[in-house]
């Protein structure tokens, strides 16, 4: 991993306080954060998970990777997280990066059942050698942002599915990473909880000013959350279309019922059908 760049240096000057950040720049004016160029990923020599994937991620983007099962969305996230390596092509971070630059939320909350809510959120700091006392403020602030400050001493088993996912999100953002990867985090939740978490996620993103790559199967979720939707097709996994949802944030329930939202959903749905048609 390379040394930190200017963006990280700026963030370090600000400390890890989860303070409200400035409004993201317009889509075309955002500086580059990460670039994937000509990525191929093949498993066992013959299963082509990704073919020629190129994607530029800019600071402040909320990108949804939308596509049918097996199109390589999760593989792309694993490559960015360096959990596996591309067969061909390269991924470069503008100005380099370190482990603190990345937060991850999985489909399951993936909490440590033996640790309290606060201890779970403390984990990223703990692995960097920080004592709880030294980062208690950050941990509590992260929990406050996801509405769980009162539950800091509770064990995960006592929480509902939605609350567990909030803890997972708090853990991902407590170190104020530059990029958060979310792999279908709300897929297992009921519709009402999912809508509520969608709203909260946007509010959080606005507060901490990070970049998000969000994997989803849901057209509606991708349109509500993102300003860029990357539609992928399967066999081999590749990008077939990129859509922009150039609607201002914050987005609320009014946006969900607006004609603009419906039009974006129609476009995304058409692109998804195209992706599935190509795959068929």
């Amino acid at each position, binding site marked *: 991993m390379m040394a930190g760049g200017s963006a990280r240096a700026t963030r370090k000057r600000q400390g890890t306080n989860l303070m409200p950040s400035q409004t993201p720049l317009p889509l075309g004016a955002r500086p580059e954060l990460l670039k994937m160029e000509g990525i191929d990923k093949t498993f066992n020599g013959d299963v082509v998970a990704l073919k020629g994937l190129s994607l530029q991620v800019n600071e402040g983007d909320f990108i949804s990777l939308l596509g049918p099962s097996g199109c390589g969305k999760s593989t792309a996230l694993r490559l960015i997280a360096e959990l596996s390596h591309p067969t061909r092509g390269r991924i470069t971070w503008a100005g380099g990066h370190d482990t603190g630059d990345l937060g*991850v939320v999985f489909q*399951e909350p*993936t909490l440590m059942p033996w640790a309290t809510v606060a201890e779970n959120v403390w984990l990223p700091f703990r692995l960097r050698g920080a004592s709880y006392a030294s980062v208690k403020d950050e941990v509590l602030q992260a929990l406050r942002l996801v509405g769980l400050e009162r539950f800091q001493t509770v064990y995960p088993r*006592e929480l509902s599915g939605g609350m567990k996912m909030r803890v997972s999100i708090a853990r991902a953002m407590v170190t104020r990473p530059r990029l958060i990867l979310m792999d279908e985090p709300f897929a297992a939740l009921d519709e009402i909880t999912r809508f509520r978490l969608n709203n909260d996620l946007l509010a959080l993103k606005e507060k901490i000013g990070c970049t998000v790559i969000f994997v989803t199967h849901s057209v509606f979720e991708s349109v509500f959350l993102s300003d860029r939707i990357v539609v992928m097709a399967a066999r081999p996994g590749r990008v077939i279309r990129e859509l922009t949802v150039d609607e201002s944030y914050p987005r609320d329930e009014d946006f969900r019922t607006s004609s603009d939202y419906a039009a974006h959903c129609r476009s995304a749905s058409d692109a998804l059908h195209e992706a599935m048609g190509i795959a068929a």
Partner: protein
Amino acid sequence: MSIAEDRGADPAPIVDADEARRARARRLDQIGKWTLPALVLLVSLFLWDRVVVWNEIPHYILPGPGLVFETLIKDWAMLFDAALVTLQITLMALAVAVLGGVGLAILFTQSRWIEMSFYPYAVILQVTPIVAIAPLIFIYVDSRIAGLLLCAWLVAFFPVLSNTTLGLNSADHNLRDLFRIMGATRWQRLRYLQLPSALPYFLGGLRIAGGLSLIGAVVAEYVAGTGGIGSGLAFRILEAGYRLNIPRMFAALILIAGMGVIIFAGLSFLSHMLLRKWHESALKRER
């Protein structure tokens, strides 16, 4: 179970027929848990006593429960000293089994090569009956205590090793990925992820190992067979057998069984205390 749900107290709780039936069943369960085994014990003792009296069985063949109890009181000083010796060997063997089992399990999970090299031999040690190995051990090991300890350890360490290895390898794969992404060192992964994940498995193995270390200690005493100061309960049983002192054999047997139960109960309590806050096995749920 969710604390997100409303906990507001209803001023007049409604108890329907289902609730009442469940409450009754719970009460009966609580009572039955203690009274039924006690009842079985009383009936068995009564039948045992009647069989001895009605058939006029001599005490050197089958003593009645009263005589066994009397002997237990009369020989208490000698039997209690012997029990302490056996308990000492058992607990020391258990401690060494825990250290050896957990230590080896950690080594196995740190390196596939070490696991591949040594695991087959751990299995061989486990499946070879201790009564077959014990005589050899007492030929080569001079110290009697060390010999007893080695025998008991050989019997007890495998469940700890096997369960802990399984537990260390059972850490959630997403959490493993998360630790990797967050740049955890091997030591941090072991300490914060694998060891806590392995705890329920380890405690399961420990409960088995507790009983096995007692068995190992008793078998080793039989094989060692030396008397004098420092002799344990198994030796007292052998000695009483030679003298046809059957009531003492029964009294010593009762002490061994009691010791086994206490060890099991103690380890179960330890397991409950360590897991009660978070692990499914220690949580009470409504049925």
